[in-house]
């Protein structure tokens, strides 16, 4: 286990004027499972590669247990890494792949054998040790890549989108296995993904990035319930949060296209105290906080809108209603009992106690 610090790290590639990663400032506690998440090109992989030592740090310090590691070669950082495309050596057997790092370091052969066999046992690869990677399925290859990292017994494990090449079912299975592996090993894991579901389900803390900058760091629940800005609110959660352009008038959030919902008293006080009355702002509400059932319509009588269902998806236990009110598209996630056909016009209630408000200019969270 190791304490990791990223102190105001910047990365600019040769020939570029902009930084690919800017002011990355993060302290990672011992044994933590950190997930870097964000859209493509947000700088998450660049940051991971700087930690690995595969990219130079332009500015700032990367520290492990207080020691600056900027100039330390990747092989001397005691870091194991799992690559997106697994990077298994096709001419070597599973055993040789897993033992490669130990053999390079001239580890005792008997110890290497034991470590590889132990790792293979953990990952269910014992019967495949003599096979070449080409004779393995995607999930098995992924396990070999993990095994190669495990046998090294490194202080820090870096995983760069390791599940992105797997099918949906296997991805869910491997997600659980990686989380279990982290608990078992008790090492620091830094995991990069663009899939917020992976981030939510695996992380102790999530680092959400956009345009080369950290947007917010927090537990999955913090990021979901208390997003710091509109980007985080929109990125975390599936389907994404719905946004409506509104103005605060007489205790209501009023949209240009007929939307009019009452703002709960507590929220209104905050908006008033911050001077947002009469100003344009963005109202955010998650799909699961929009209801169509009768009891909800009765519970929230002053937060009802008229909407038309454009596309509906029956997901099993729930339905996604891709709807429109005025000119604004939004999604409601409702119980499958409340499934509606496309073209249906219906009333929907916003559970306004769970609404978020964002400044239109800065896009930062007001409440």
């Amino acid at each position, binding site marked *: 286990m190791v304490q990791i610090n990223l102190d105001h790290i910047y990365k600019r590639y040769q020939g570029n004027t902009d930084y690919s990663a800017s002011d990355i400032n993060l302290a990672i506690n011992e044994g933590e499972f950190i997930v870097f998440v964000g859209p493509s090109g947000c700088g998450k992989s660049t940051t991971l590669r700087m930690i*690995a030592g*595969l990219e130079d740090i332009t500015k700032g310090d990367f520290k492990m247990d207080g020691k600056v590691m900027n100039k330390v070669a*990747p*092989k001397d950082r005691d*870091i*194991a*890494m799992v*690559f*997106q*495309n697994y*990077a298994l*050596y*096709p*001419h070597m057997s599973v055993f040789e792949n897993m033992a*490669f*790092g130990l053999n*390079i*370091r001239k580890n005792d052969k008997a110890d290497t054998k034991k470590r590889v066999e132990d790792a293979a046992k953990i990952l269910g690869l014992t019967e495949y040790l003599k096979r070449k990677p080409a004779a393995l399925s995607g999930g098995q290859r992924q396990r070999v890549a993990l095994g*190669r990292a495990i046998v*090294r017994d490194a202080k820090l494990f870096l995983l760069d989108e390791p599940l992105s090449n797997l099918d949906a079912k296997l991805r869910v299975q491997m997600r659980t296995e990686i989380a279990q592996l982290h608990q078992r090993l008790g090492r620091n894991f830094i995991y990069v993904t663009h899939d917020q579901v992976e981030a939510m389900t695996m992380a102790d803390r999530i680092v959400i990035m956009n345009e080369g900058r950290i947007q917010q760091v927090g537990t999955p629940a913090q990021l979901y319930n208390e997003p710091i800005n509109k980007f985080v609110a929109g990125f975390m959660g599936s389907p994404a949060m719905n946004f409506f352009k509104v103005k605060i008038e007489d205790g209501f959030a009023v949209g240009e296209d007929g939307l009019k919902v009452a703002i709960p008293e507590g929220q209104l006080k905050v908006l008033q105290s911050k001077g947002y009355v009469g100003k344009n702002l963005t109202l955010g509400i998650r799909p699961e906080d929009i209801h169509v059932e009768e009891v909800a319509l009765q519970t929230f009588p002053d937060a009802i809108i008229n909407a038309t269902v454009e596309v509906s998806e029956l997901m099993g236990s729930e339905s996604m209603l891709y709807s429109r009110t005025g000119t604004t598209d939004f999604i409601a996630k409702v119980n499958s009992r409340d499934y509606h056909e496309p073209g249906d016009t219906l009333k929907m209630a916003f559970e306004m106690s769970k609404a978020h408000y964002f400044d239109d200019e800065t896009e930062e969270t007001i409440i």
Partner: protein
Amino acid sequence: MSKKSTHLIAVLGALVGLLWLFPFYMIVTNSFKTPKGIFASVLALPHPSTGRNYVNSFKALHFIGSLTNSLIITVCGVLLIILCSSMAAYALQRNHSKLSGALLLLFISSMLIPFQSVMIPLTANFGSVHALNMWGLMFMYLGFDCSLSIFLYQGTLSSIPFAMDEAAEMEGASRWQIFYKVIFPMLSPMTVTVAILNIIAIWNDYLLPSLVLPQAQYTIPLQMFNFFGEYTKQWHLALAGITLSIIPVILFYLAAQKWIIKGVTDGAVK
């Protein structure tokens, strides 16, 4: 495809196959004939048949010595080309500087220079450093043949993800270990192709060795020339000599058959 057209293609294939085998038939059958027998009928089977040609050709060619020379020059030359060109291609492909790009272009453009335009100054220069021998010849082959090999290796290397290098680097491998433990084995199919191309070129080469090698280091093709005088051509001995000189190549093919087929077909199907 209908059964009829399948049969037609099979017959056509067999005819093409026979056409390809015909030179071998000519060489082998005539190598067992007397000079009179060859001129009587080139196409007929040997009658009477004689193995004497092989004994005489074996002696005239100094076969053991010239075979050894051919083997040393071919094996060492090809190994040198494989080693240098794979490493050069690796360095050029993995280094994305403008200089690397320019060097690669330089290597590729050197393929366009005709050998005949440089052979005289080349031998003069090698002569001045007393390198007109089989070792000097190997370096000449390296210079002439590595450009194509680098070009071929470079293409294959571009399909090997850089993550392979990075994974090995993270595991603790040095740059040299990354190359020879990870990358070079992955180049095997192309190495086979490079080896075949260069073995054929070097084994059969006549012109460059004739300019460079002293008589004591003559290769099989040079010794073969002894059978072709200004006024007489000893076809019976020459054809026996050609048959003898083909044997090592066939043995090489049989030994490396598995790798050659893999090398040629690798990547053809997913």
